[in-house]
């Protein structure tokens, strides 16, 4: 401990200028990137990129942008670079497109904006290139829809290296954790080796078909985050002011709409599984049917449990606040 303190005091008194290794990642080495781009190691292996590192700033920007869209999907681009089989996202910026399903048309206006933005960014020493795109799925989870898969396949043909990030601002707030996923598609016709069951996520009934049809065409990347030493300092001091918001926020209130939607969805799923169960009992080949109806009911159960837990968490905070601030018994004068 003493040596550490001594080092710190020495560093401070001499205003040591060395950049810590944590901040090295912020330096853009043009030559290194050019070499990687000419070598193109990802062409031989469709599963080349396994990890993705997102900077604290990029994450915050994406979350804020997704949240500002409300219930409409929003879209933007990611800037960054590549390092071995890790993709690194340094920054993100929003694109001026409307959240409609026909996003393929909106690409033209987006391209213009993109070109203008990256040019002006280079002038202020933001030298990274576009490394991917992100969009939001407000309320229905992080996965790639049919259109997303075709867009991403196109991107991976012409703009390699490219990654697709999906963020769900509504589930972020309801679960209290950032709901985000990073994906890369397999090229057409490629049969991926059977990977183990991925983490289950609850998908609303009206989207579940879209999810199921395409879920084998892409794989998820492992996400980790990084921040600079300056960020770390700021975040620590930010906490000194921000703790008030942690206590005062009430997820039950902010998420009332979403919770109601989830309960509706759950009731639909239960109805469906009930129909399945009724039919399954009379067939001789009972085993396969059992599995299906079991699956439906089991999935509906997981969804129900998730919604319940989130509601209970919200109530826990409310009860804590009530105990802290309401149950003070002033002594009778």
């Amino acid at each position, binding site marked *: 401990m003493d040596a550490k303190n001594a080092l710190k005091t020495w560093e401070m008194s001499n205003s040591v200028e060395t*950049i810590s290794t944590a901040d090295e990642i912020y330096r853009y080495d043009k030559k290194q990137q050019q070499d990687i781009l000419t070598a193109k190691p990802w062409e031989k292996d469709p599963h080349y990129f396994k990890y993705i590192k997102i900077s604290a700033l990029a994450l915050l920007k994406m979350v*804020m942008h997704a949240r500002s869209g409300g219930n409409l999907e929003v879209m933007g681009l990611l800037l960054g670079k590549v390092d071995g089989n890790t993709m690194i996202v340094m920054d993100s910026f929003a694109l001026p497109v409307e959240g409609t399903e026909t996003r393929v048309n909106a690409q033209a206006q987006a391209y213009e904006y993109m070109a203008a933005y990256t040019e002006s960014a280079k002038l202020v020493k933001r030298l990274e290139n576009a490394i991917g795109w992100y969009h939001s799925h407000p309320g229905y989870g992080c996965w790639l829809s049919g259109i997303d898969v075709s867009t991403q396949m196109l991107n991976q043909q012409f703009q390699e290296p490219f990654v697709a990030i999906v963020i769900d*601002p509504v589930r972020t707030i309801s679960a209290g954790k950032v709901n985000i996923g990073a994906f890369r598609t397999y090229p057409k016709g490629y049969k991926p080796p059977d990977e183990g069951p991925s983490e289950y996520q609850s998908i609303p009934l009206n989207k579940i078909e879209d999810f199921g049809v395409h879920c084998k065409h892409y794989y998820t990347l492992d996400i980790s985050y990084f921040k*600079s030493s300056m960020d770390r300092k700021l975040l620590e001091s930010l906490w000194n002011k921000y703790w008030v918001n*942690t206590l005062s926020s009430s997820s039950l209130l902010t998420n009332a709409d979403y919770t109601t939607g989830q309960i509706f969805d759950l009731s639909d799923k239960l109805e469906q599984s009930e129909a399945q169960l009724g039919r399954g009992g009379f067939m001789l080949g009972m085993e396969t049917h059992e599995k299906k109806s079991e699956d439906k009911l089991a999935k509906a159960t997981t969804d129900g449990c998730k919604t319940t837990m989130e509601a209970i968490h919200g109530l826990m905070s409310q009860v804590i606040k009530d105990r802290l601030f309401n149950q003070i018994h002033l002594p009778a004068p």
Partner: protein
Amino acid sequence: MATNMEVEYGNPGVMASAGTSGSVSISLHPLVIMNVSEHWTRVRAQEGKPQQVLGALIGKQKGRNIEVMNSFELLFDIIDSDIVVNMDYYNTKEEQFKQVFSTMDFLGWYTTGDEPTESDIKVHKQICRINESPILLKLNPFARHADLPVAVYESVIDLVNGEATMLFVELQYTLATEEAERIGVDHVARVSTSEAGEGSTVAEHLIAQHSAIKMLHSRVQLILEYVKAVQAGEVPKNHDILREAYSLCYRLPVLNTDKFKEDFFDQCNDVCLMAYLGTITKGCNTINQFVNKFNVLYDRQGMGRRIRGLFF
């Protein structure tokens, strides 16, 4: 001669006299702070040594309330050791951000450094050409104290030695509270401490609440210590602080009306109902699985008996 010296040394000539209060209230989003920090880190990593960075602040202004929501970098040239903002670059960027953030306006500019200096005044005058009363945000990357090293200023025109000069007035700011942002900031702040997330979401949730309550507790302790010290005569009485502490105590309990109790219990009941729903669904599922397994076991035997019965 004396006046020249003052202006050169910066500080006395640049800040308005203490006691001048600001005219607007500022609400700052943490995203802006992260933006500035990243800009500074990036330039330092590219150039090898720290440099002063400059940028623009955008957000919404409603009357006397300014909400600073986002920011972007600005290009500047150094001409004769003076910072000159590149207005063409600003105009291009303004077009761009109007496309994406149509509801936001240009509010002011930011830079890195400690106390405001003469050169800041000069840049501020240039910015005044875009927006008549911009605000300045200063981030100090070398601050030693644990407080947030961010300060916000606005400008006033005051009479100093007979001539109208521009001076800075420090403004108080609050941190904007957006739920998703808070979760993002929380997540990123804690990501280095716990690499392998615990399996229990309840524990995570409670840990977050616990940290906040710890802070509250430490603050309350501080006030308590102060009051005890005043009582013991060690510290001089400060009536302002004592008055505020008293009014704080007087506000507890925060809400104790019947209507509140009713609503609170309603909310509790709703959540309990949802818990009931979840539990019953889970129970149904377990029973269903059990029945299916039971059927498989006994029907197999039944099937065998029936087939044997058919043949014999």
